[in-house]
């Protein structure tokens, strides 16, 4: 059983955090340079937080942690291009 989803699964959280639709935003992985839209990133939801990885090198590019009512978005290795 795979627990892997894609960026579509966190679209609502990201909209709430960034104030706009994010699934079609292009991002570049700072670890390997791969460019993809947020919808194509690898999403691991079943964890203390949500871990988002590069579909190419699997580096952790984004982490979402919900504390109380707030969803904190961390971008350890993702650069948005828009």
């Amino acid at each position: 059983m795979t627990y892997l989803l894609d960026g579509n699964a966190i679209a609502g959280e990201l909209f709430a955090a960034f104030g706009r639709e994010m699934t079609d935003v292009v991002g570049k992985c700072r670890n390997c340079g791969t460019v993809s839209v947020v919808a194509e990133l690898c999403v691991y939801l079943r964890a203390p937080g949500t871990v988002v990885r590069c579909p190419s090198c699997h580096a952790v590019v984004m982490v979402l942690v919900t504390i109380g009512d707030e969803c904190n978005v961390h971008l350890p290795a993702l650069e948005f291009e828009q």
Partner: protein
Amino acid sequence: MARAALPGRLSWQIGRVVDTIQETRRAKSLVLDLPNWPGHRAGQHIDIRLTADDGYQAQRGYSIASAPEDDGVMLTVDRLEDGEVSPYLTDVVEPGDEIELRGPIGGYFVWDPSLSGPLLLISGGSGIVPLRAMLRDWAAARPQVKVRLLHSARSLDDVIFRDEIMRFAAFDEVDVRIALTRAWPEGWRGHRGRIDRDFLERAAWPPQDAPRIYVCGPTGFVEAAAAALVETGQRPDTIKTERFGPTGG
């Protein structure tokens, strides 16, 4: 009816269930009346939030099964045996109940009749839900775009919206092929087994037609189908994917 969501706002709102439809033994549709609905695009989804009386909350995303032209917003829920939310939605929720949700959400896995084709829709199991919205939108607009739907299910009884997609297949411009993976009727002339490279070579648009491709279903299905498409020569940048799976902790 508005076609685009209001930019910058994604608020939780309350919808009322006005109808429920048992589609297959596992899938049930809920039709919602949403007074503050801005309209949506085929392929988008909503997030549902359930609250127990002690404040405990659970949240899940569900694709919108209805087209923008339809009355009410319809969701179709696949009941997961040990799910936390889906059995509640299929077994407990009744017309008259309120459901908290936000949406529409999604800017990538979306289609509208202005987009060029041909259109190739590939789904496994409940992945057919957002594609059904696309087909209904297509049927309402009748753009000059040819459509092929390739759908994989365990058996004919597990094909959600089976009668409806057969009616779509009656359009000249629409071609529907079903792959059954576990059981098929005697004399079945559709595909037996999973959607694979051979099936795609026979059933999909050839790469030189540059189809616009949407693939939706469980993660394993989507990854296998997308890989097979690329193996048959389809360009990766023409393929959009949406993976479904259990999200509860």
